[in-house]
């Protein structure tokens, strides 16, 4: 018998709810918040998702959505473990990712990855407010078509490490990709940019980034409606 064990804890020890509930609340909350911020208007959507949210609340007996979002954004370290199945062979997925310079194509919080040599790279993440957080990273382990692991070098703005694993998914479904990333504060003092960056990274964001990666690999583009026409009266 194979027992399922989560590979890495998805939740910090200060959070006492299960991962799926948390994910749901973050998805919902993230969406609501994003709309609220973008449109400055939450009413329509809040109504819209009321059905789903009520069911969520009904089934868990909880109503602490905002509190949880607060928890997830105020944490002092971000640890993420997500997986996705991509309908392409492992070697394609591996080689695209191994060229770390491709990463900003689908990770929007990473502005640039400059490859220095076979092992080392320079990473630039952008935090809200146009502030940049930079670090040098080194590949600490890799096996072709299996995994790539990296870690930030000393004296970086932030401690970051990550590992991405590749495996052939059962049932001719292509590649199963697992990403594990950690952002830690170096020492005790955190600069404002780093705090902002940490506050801006969420589960939802990483899931969306993996979704974009899948879209690029499967379809060659990131489907979008940004910039499409819509009926707005002039000046509205």
């Amino acid at each position, binding site marked *: 018998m194979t027992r399922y064990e989560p590979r890495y804890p998805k939740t910090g020890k200060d959070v006492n709810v299960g991962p799926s509930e948390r994910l*749901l609340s973050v*998805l*919902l909350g*993230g*969406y609501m918040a994003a709309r609220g911020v973008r*449109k400055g208007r939450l009413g*329509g*959507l809040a*109504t*819209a*998702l*009321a*059905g*789903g949210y*009520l*069911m969520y609340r009904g089934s868990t007996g909880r109503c602490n959505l905002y509190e949880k979002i607060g928890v997830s954004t105020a944490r002092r370290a971000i640890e993420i473990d997500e997986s996705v*199945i991509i*309908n392409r062979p492992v070697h394609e997925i591996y080689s695209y990712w191994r060229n770390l310079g491709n990463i900003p194509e689908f990770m929007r919080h990473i502005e640039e990855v400059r490859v220095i040599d076979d092992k080392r790279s320079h990473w630039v993440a952008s935090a809200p407010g146009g502030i940049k957080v930079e670090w040098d990273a080194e590949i600490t382990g890799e096996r072709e078509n299996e995994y790539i692991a990296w870690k930030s070098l000393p004296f970086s703005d932030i401690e970051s490490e990550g590992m991405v694993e590749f495996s052939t998914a059962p049932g001719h*479904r*292509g590649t199963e990709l697992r990403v594990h990333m950690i952002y830690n504060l170096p020492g005790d003092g955190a600069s404002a940019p780093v705090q902002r960056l940490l506050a801006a990274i969420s589960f*939802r964001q990483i*899931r*969306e980034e993996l*979704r974009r990666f*899948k*879209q690029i690999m*499967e*379809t*060659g*583009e990131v*489907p*979008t*409606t*940004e*910039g*499409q*026409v*819509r*009926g*707005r*009266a002039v000046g*509205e």
Partner: protein
Amino acid sequence: MKALCWYGKRDLRVMEVPEPEILGPRDAIVRVSLSAVCGSDLHLYNGHVPSMERGDILGHEFVGTVVDVGGRVEGFRPGDRVAVPFTISCGRCFFCERELWSLCDNSNPNAYAAEALYGYSPAGIYGYSHLFGGYAGGQAEYVRVPFADSGLLKLPESVSDEKAVLLCDVFPTGYMAAENCSIQEGDTVAVWGAGPVGLLAMKSASLLGAERVIAIDRFPERLGLASRLADAVALNYEDVDVDEALRDITGGMGPDACIDAVGMEAHGKGHGRVYDAVKNKLRAETDRPTALRQAILACRKGGTVSIAGAYAGYVDKVPVGAAFNKGITIKGGQTHVQKYMPRLLNLVEDGKADPSDVITHSFGLEEGPIAYEVFKHKEDGCVKVVLKP
């Protein structure tokens, strides 16, 4: 260009908006020559589908001519006359490869929102709220078609716009609803709702070998149409007890298959109707499953209930005990339009089916708001409305 835009519950406006542009390498721009109003557009109109925004361009059934293509479009060129399936599908994911086009993994840019509601996101749909991608729809002069190579069907000259526009949604939807019934030679199929999808489901059921088709509705004109176009036995649920009548017609056995072509805005009758109205008001239930409940209860033992009507959220008091103890198969889903379009186009070309006889009304695009009102209230025997830009 002119476009029909949603501005709120029962508030549509014809607006002057910029023409759409190519946004992705696999996009095409289509000049619309005819669009149609779908029963599920009425759910948007009546404010039942969440995440609509002011200014959204409506419409997911349209035909026209390609005027521009992106750099990676291979099969289409400006000048091609095309029908556009309402499901936006990438053609490359697990689901598209298995012809489950309406479940495409990659075409919904707001997948995270749909995931919050449904667990996993279905495909994007034109003009069908931001939960389904927020794509601009085709009740306009021009429309952007993403993934053109897996989202366009070339039309032969011999097939008119009126016939072709029904290939974008309602004919495939009716056909899939009937196919989901696994019809055996000689079966009796009961269809709730004699709207366009219901009528085409009835025709399709006959095409697939059903011996008897029963239409259930409350509008005499629609029931008349069902008898005329699909040779259906007509039941008006305002006049007869549907369950009793179905038993009577089928020698006490019940229909072999039941199609719910009504969906979330069923009117219904009696206690169930009041119950749903109250629950809707309290937001504890988003849809009204009257037809679904009746279909499950009426279906014969071991039969199939096929759902073609659109549901958006949660429903209550669905007789699961009946479904379980009678061994009923329940099937449904948004239509995998691309799967059915070519074969239905063949039927139309060969003169074996003419879906366009469900079209009763034609309006100019600028009369869109009136068209929706007429369609909503089924005034003047209205069954299916088309809009000419």
